[in-house]
């Protein structure tokens, strides 16, 4: 897994690339929590994630809950088909705010 961080429309966008599995989900979790520790609204761009396991999903859930506790915005954008099928299995596709891309999320925010 690789990641990049950028700023866009008042959000920090953490873009994950590759396979988010047990070997790297601790790093994904660390980056997610780091952004939230700095009180930044966070979008996780998953358009380049071609595999995610339950440990990667757990990192997203922790980010979602941490953001909620801190009154920060959190969401997923560009979720790839393979990642979406895992979120659906976990029945989290209706829990996370999910948008096609950052622009769609900004539109939804108004």
């Amino acid at each position, binding site marked *: 897994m690789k990641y990049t961080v950028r700023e866009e429309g008042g959000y920090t966008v953490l873009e994950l690339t590759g396979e988010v599995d047990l070997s790297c989900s601790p790093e994904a979790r660390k980056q997610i929590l780091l952004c939230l520790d700095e009180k930044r609204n966070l979008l996780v761009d998953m358009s380049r994630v071609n595999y995610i396991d339950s440990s990667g999903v757990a990192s997203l*859930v922790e980010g979602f809950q941490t953001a909620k506790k801190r009154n920060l915005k959190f969401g997923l954008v560009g979720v790839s088909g393979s990642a979406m099928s895992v979120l659906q299995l976990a029945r989290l596709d209706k829990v996370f705010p999910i948008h096609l891309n950052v622009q769609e999320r900004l539109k939804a925010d108004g």
Partner: protein
Amino acid sequence: MKAEKLLEVRFPAKPERLCLVRSLVRSASTHSGCSGALCDKLVIAVNEACMNVIQHAYKGDESGEMVLEILNNGSELLFRLKDHAAPIDLNSVKPRDLDEIRPGGLGVHFIREIMDECRMGHLEKGAGNYLEMTKRID
């Protein structure tokens, strides 16, 4: 029909080896005529089973090993995963309530949702644990 063994692989209980296991599961599933969507699901289930061994049976001890066998009896694929960790409490392995939104505990749910049958138990003389997962492919 007698089950044909497609592969048997022994690998260390290390998270870094899971990508190789996923490749083998995908290859064996494709070779057995599974659709792309089914291959994806089988990869998810077997990966989660291996993760459970790494995290809960060996508790992160990377010196541990596990063995994965994949068999095809013509209508079903059988995935048999064995480890040599201390016998686990079989009653502790159960899916959790998905209405409770919290990190962790999804692996067993994924496996049960994807596979048709799952059986788990202890190897003889406390030599470890096994998990057998079956999926119809016809």
